[in-house]
């Protein structure tokens, strides 16, 4: 009772930490009983807790004892599984060294225990109250879509791509793709795909996507310089084609302008990872395979039109991009956790 009175007197401070490739975004929201009072966003050129970052966070957390630090899980050993049954989980993945949670008792998301400890250790100076999975962010962000027909959903972060296939709120497949280790993974997967090239995976509509994907991605990796040239041409030629009239489609001029060589490489890398992962989804018999036509992208980094273009042209997806303020979404999850 006394605690609730004190809680009502103080502001709540939500500190949401998003770790990017070489920087850390800290989104702070001050929340009173009436609602959000103020929010502050800052980016620090570090992925550790340096003095500047610590000082920034503590300058707000010291204002109220009711502060909550939330971190978006950035471990590479995480994912989601299409079941929540304890008996069925090992069929998909060995979770002996993982922490997992069920989402609406329909599917589960997991992460490595050691990576969780590592996150807690990294943020020991400020403490961590919540660690959220990007798959939860993705599911929450597209909650209006995942209840519908089959589609591929992707959360694109600076160095991660979290993809999930949902059909009527049921998860069919999910994978967390780490761009930092993608080259090695790509090499392995490509070798694996090359060996299984002879396999023809017959789809319902008769399109052999696997062979197309593998060949395309293989060429792209082997002759990346040609792709870069192609991109330079396509940026001019296919610019109008990319402007589909769709409500969620995000194609701002700013994004297109920023599509320089670096972002192209990154987007191609993302495309490549998605392509490989989808190939895995189609091939692996463990997963309930279905032909994907639509793809929804939650864009947290401002991807260029190249990614959309490649996904549409190479994988024949109808791609819808929706910009996501991932830090604000994490903040909303924190509030939901606290029942606000």
């Amino acid at each position, binding site marked *: 009772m006394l605690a609730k009175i004190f809680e009502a007197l103080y502001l709540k401070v939500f500190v949401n930490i998003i770790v990017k490739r070489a920087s850390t975004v800290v989104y702070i929201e001050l929340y009173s009983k009436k609602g959000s009072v103020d929010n502050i966003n800052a980016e620090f050129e570090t992925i550790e807790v340096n003095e500047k970052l610590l000082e920034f966070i503590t300058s707000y957390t*010291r204002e109220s*004892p*009711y502060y909550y630090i939330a971190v978006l899980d950035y471990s590479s050993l995480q994912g989601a599984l299409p079941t929540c049954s304890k008996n069925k989980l090992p069929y998909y993945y060995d979770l002996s060294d993982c922490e997992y*949670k069920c*989402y609406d008792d329909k599917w589960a998301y997991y*992460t490595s225990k050691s990576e*969780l400890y590592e996150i807690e250790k990294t943020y020991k100076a400020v403490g961590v109250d*919540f660690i959220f999975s990007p798959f939860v962010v993705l599911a929450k962000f597209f909650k209006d879509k995942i209840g519908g027909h089959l589609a591929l959903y992707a959360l694109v972060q600076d160095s991660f791509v979290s993809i999930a296939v949902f059909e009527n709120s049921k998860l069919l497949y999910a994978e967390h793709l780490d761009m930092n280790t993608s080259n090695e993974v790509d090499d392995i997967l490509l070798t694996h795909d090359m060996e299984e090239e002879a396999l023809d995976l017959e789809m319902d509509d008769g399109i052999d996507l696997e062979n197309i994907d593998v060949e395309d991605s293989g060429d792209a990796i082997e002759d990346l310089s040609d792709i870069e040239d192609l991109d330079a041409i396509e940026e001019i030629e296919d610019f109008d084609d990319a402007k589909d009239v769709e409500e969620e489609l995000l194609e701002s001029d700013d994004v297109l302008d920023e599509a320089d060589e670096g972002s192209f490489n990154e987007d191609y890398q993302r495309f490549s990872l998605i392509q490989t992962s989808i190939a895995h989804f189609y091939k692996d018999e463990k997963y309930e395979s279905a032909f994907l036509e639509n793809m929804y992208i939650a864009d947290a980094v401002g991807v260029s039109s190249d990614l959309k273009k490649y996904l549409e042209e190479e994988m024949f997806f109808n791609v819808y991009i929706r910009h996501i303020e991932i830090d604000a979404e994490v903040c909303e999850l924190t509030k939901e956790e606290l029942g606000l």
Partner: protein
Amino acid sequence: MKYSYIKPRKKTPFTADVQLIVTFFSITIIMLISTYAFLLFKDYSFAKERANLMQSRIELEKNIEDMDQKIAYIKEQKALSEKVFTQNMVLKDSIANLFDLVPERITLSRADLLQNGLILYGVTPNKDVYNFMLQAPLRSIFQKTYTSFYPADGGWLHFVSTNYVNEDEGEELNSEN
């Protein structure tokens, strides 16, 4: 904990700073209360001591009164003793004077000293010796003198002389003493 992998830490308004402030104020309040309690105790102690001293004072005053009474009594006793001593001295002198009055030819056998008189028993060779040598000085002292004679062996006479002074004079004499 619906979506998070970990549980949030328990939040309390009693942060380190608040705990420090609360501790500081608690110590201050405890010290003030202790001081107040000490002063209350000392006040009670002083009040009790004062009551004891008042009681002692009353007892001492009572003792002083008793002692004053005793001193007064002793003074009275002393005065009385001095008076008795003086009276005894006067009486001794009177008796000495009385025996000085008795001539050698008259022999006293008994003398009774009264409050306001003197009764003498004795033997005299004759009345004249008695009348001239003893009765005359007795008359000068006592206002009333009565003498009776009766014969004794060898022609001598026994006499009983009863002498009184007046009441008023006797009192004056006493007061003078």
